[in-house]
């Protein structure tokens, strides 16, 4: 009798125990952190968008928007400007080209050892020379094609692009007829350094209002840079640095409503 009861108890226990342990095991399995079983590492991924650079470039003469060729700006160089030139000036061509920029400003930054005057005219390009051609530019393609540039009389009546100096020393200009920079932009160029020759202080000139590009597609604007010696001669050879920059700028038109 007792044996039967004990066997009965053992049988019941044998049934309950595995079930209980199984349930405990399942609960335990559910309780474990998920991927510790499969992936030893843990991974976090942070993401962000990057903007595209503005497509605005400066080149020497000729830019072909169809086949994408351009003349590297290093082909714009000024060797030995003769101050005795009969015209009193020398003309050079450069261009600003890009994509989807509605307007840009031009800036000239130059030292003033040679007291040159700089004028910028919007130019038009022609495959053949005309009576008004000012610059004959030889491109660096295989055929070494020539392109001819003249002042575009339809832009601003053929006048130079309007601009003003950012840091012209007005006193020196008025009294001594000298193009010199004042101190207002000294820190940008030279930081805390103080011993700068006054003719090495860069003079900054900038267009007054943006020149139009093309907000929807590719564009190129040719310019003639006129370096005017104004007949000023000296026995010294002087050297200057000239930087030309273009920066995109847009004026939002305030429409109605």
């Amino acid at each position, binding site marked *: 009798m007792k044996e039967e009861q004990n066997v009965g108890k053992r049988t019941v226990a044998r049934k309950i125990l595995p079930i209980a342990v199984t349930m405990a095991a399942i609960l335990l399995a559910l309780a474990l952190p998920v991927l510790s079983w499969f992936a030893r590492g843990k*991974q976090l991924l942070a*993401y962000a*968008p990057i903007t595209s650079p503005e497509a605005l470039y400066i080149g020497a003469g000729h830019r072909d928007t169809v086949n994408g060729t351009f003349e590297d700006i290093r082909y714009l160089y000024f060797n030995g400007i003769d101050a005795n030139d009969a015209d009193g000036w020398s003309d050079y061509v450069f261009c600003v080209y890009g994509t989807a920029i509605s307007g840009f400003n031009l800036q000239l930054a130059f030292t003033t050892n040679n007291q040159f005057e700089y004028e910028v005219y919007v130019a038009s390009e022609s495959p053949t020379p005309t009576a008004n051609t000012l610059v004959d530019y030889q491109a660096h393609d295989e055929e070494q094609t020539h392109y001819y540039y003249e002042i575009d009389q339809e832009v601003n009546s053929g006048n130079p692009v309007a601009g003003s100096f950012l840091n012209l020393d007005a006193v020196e200009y008025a009294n001594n007829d000298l193009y010199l920079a004042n101190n207002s932009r000294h820190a940008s160029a030279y930081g805390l350094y103080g011993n700068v020759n006054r003719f090495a202080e860069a003079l900054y000139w900038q267009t007054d209002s943006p020149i139009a590009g093309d907000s929807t597609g590719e564009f190129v604007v040719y310019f003639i840079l006129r370096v005017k010696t104004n007949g000023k001669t000296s026995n010294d050879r002087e050297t200057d640095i000239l930087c030309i920059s273009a920066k995109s700028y847009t004026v939002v038109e305030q429409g109605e409503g």
Partner: protein
Amino acid sequence: MKKIDRSTLTIIRFAIPLCLSFLIVVGVIFTAVFHPSLGWFATSKGNMVSGMTVVTTAEDCELLIERPNENEFDSTKGSPPIERYPGIGALKTYFTQDGFDPTTETSTSNEPRLAFELVNELERSELDEELGEYINTRYLLPGAYGTLTFYLRPFPGVERVRKTFTLTLAGYYAVESEGNYVIHEVSSQTTLDLLKGHILFFTERTGNTHEEYRYDGLVDGSFLFDSNDHDLCEEVGKTDCYKITLYWEWPETYLDISRKLSSPGHADKYPAEVGAYITEHRTYFFAINQASNDETERSEGYDDGDQMIGSQVHYVSVLIETSN
């Protein structure tokens, strides 16, 4: 009652543990595959049923991120609204296919692979030529800076956590075709190298405004976290976590780095180690003039590197992993 004979008893003795083991394995696989959110289960590791050795793991903590209410890069523009950041939807789908969950939830989440937005502190107003109006954007570009934050929660009973985190940068570009975007990974090693030098990560930053920022602890591929050196987070609901913040900046020009390098006796924006990092990894910083030590040539190389990144990479990602 029939007595169960010995052989049957032996079989049962082995069969039961076998069945139990099988059930346990099935249980864990079942749970793993179906990814339930187990935030509130994670602390039960201490409740092991004695005598049961289920899973041995070296893991002593878990990583969490906090989801914002709204994703910055999911914002739209115009009417009818379109993606402010073209291709962002396709990018998130791309991440999802890789097993990274980029969905927005307001609670702290501890899914195993998480995708979330890098925080860019620089907001710019730019003219959208198509819309003809100014919109605010938080694109990354030279000059941008921000943070990357995640949380580390040690399991109960774990006294100290020491983890090496590795950072891996990747790039993507979106190609539009018939109104849809297709995401491709940037494969050019040159460009991927440039990302490592142009987007710099640091473990420390001081200063209240960008002009005052001073960085320290340059992350050169990986950084070590030791909980002994940090205090637990004090924010409500996270007091059992360590908050780990990385600080990043995309220096605008080479001179922005070289003229703001700290040196003995002179504390500046970037720690001195950045100088050595540049010299050791010239391909990370310069697309051309890599052999040069001249400031102007290096500046050109850096600018060209910026141009290369900007024209080839539409989206960047930072993968943070720990293997121990």
